[in-house]
């Protein structure tokens, strides 16, 4: 599984950081999403999928492999 984020779409809601802080973080200057890792370990994959589904601006894409 690979995660990617679209920073242009992100509205800095923080929802993904609340859900999986091990994977998602926010830029210091404007709160826009950054990835701490784009390949989450197995135990965080389900949570990362849920974070993608709950992003209010559809800025998170999960590619299953």
């Amino acid at each position, binding site marked *: 599984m690979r995660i990617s984020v679209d920073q242009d779409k992100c509205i*800095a809601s923080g929802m993904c950081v609340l859900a999986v802080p091990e994977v998602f973080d926010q830029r210091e200057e404007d709160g*826009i999403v950054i990835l701490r890792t784009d390949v989450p370990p197995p135990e965080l994959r389900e949570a990362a999928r849920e974070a993608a589904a*709950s992003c*209010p601006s559809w800025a998170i894409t999960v590619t299953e492999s």
Partner: protein
Amino acid sequence: MTHPAAPSPTATAPAGIPEYPMARASGCPFDPPPALRALQTEGRISRVRLWDGSTPWLVTRYDDERALLSDPCISSDNTHPGYPHVSAGALERRKRAPTFINMDDPDHARLRRMVTARFAIKRVEALRPAIQRIVDELIDAMLTAPKPVDLVEEFALPVPSRVICELLGVPYADHGFFQSNSRILVKRDTSPKAAGEAIDKLVHYLESLVTEKLAHPGDDLLSKLAVEQVATGEISTRVAAAMGTLLLTAGHETTANMIALGTLALLQHPDQLAALRETGDPGLIASAVEELLRYLSIVHTGRRRVALADIDFGDVVIRAGDGVILANDAANRDTSVFPDPDRLDIDRGTRQHLAFGFGVHQCLGQPLARVELQVVYATLYRRIPTLRLAVDLDQLPFKSDGLVYGVYKLPVTW
């Protein structure tokens, strides 16, 4: 109606179209109006009639609302002739002090991003000790005050007002001024004249604050806007002041209602209150906050939008220019997403509600509101374990006429 209906292609639609917003059932202050739930059961979309005679679409189901709220053909621009205004006063506010809550991207994103840094999860988490201190001080004061105490005046309003004042750099000493003017703005029956005066006063006040910050910047959000955006010519003092007004009013009214109405809901559900009081688990406290946000859905007059292009929606076509209302309070009771939705269950453990909206306009202040409510719900009932209502439920004045639902007063004792 004293204000003429906005010209609308559907203003002559046949009678029989239900009025919106609808009334709640008496004795059920926490549940959405029965007529709204009936529409949710009957179909995916229907027409409703507003205060000005216009007849926008109403959508009530969770999946449909999420889809439409993130559809690029759906606009928040309330200068559009088809926009379903919540009241005559709200229309006046937009004319005098436009803010990003009623703009579309790219303008919306450009302006919103000027203030998002301070609402990032880590920045807000860092405020937790200060919020705890404010909550504890206000409880200390209540404990020495003569009983009964009005929880709204003595606690629910001061907590978020103090917090947003510190964050913005607004002197808390002026709370009487900004609270009374924002109270005028959040009532649906406020006349355009009264709304206009209230918004002008607030914007002038914020303008002088921004000017002051330009000369003597501090570490607060208004100073940041003054130095980084106004001084550089990116935005005018007026635009910064309008944004400040939005943050100040949205930052205290909403959370205040969640504190007072949330407390009332918990007092009516003693088992849930006991579980919350006795837990030391931050996870359960966070879950209780999400559940009360879902269950109470205080922003109860729907998300207001207008279609910019034709949208195929089941059996109907939403035409370009049609107003659309997304009833997020109804979506939060959608049985296909929330099993047994009318039950308050603080252990439900889901953040998927639409209490903060969805799409690009989803609440900017949500991380702050969450931390404020977590601190309040984790502290108030533990420190005052015998807290109870000082009057009967049916004597409480509910904000049925408000843009945001809640109680005007909550007399409590212990």
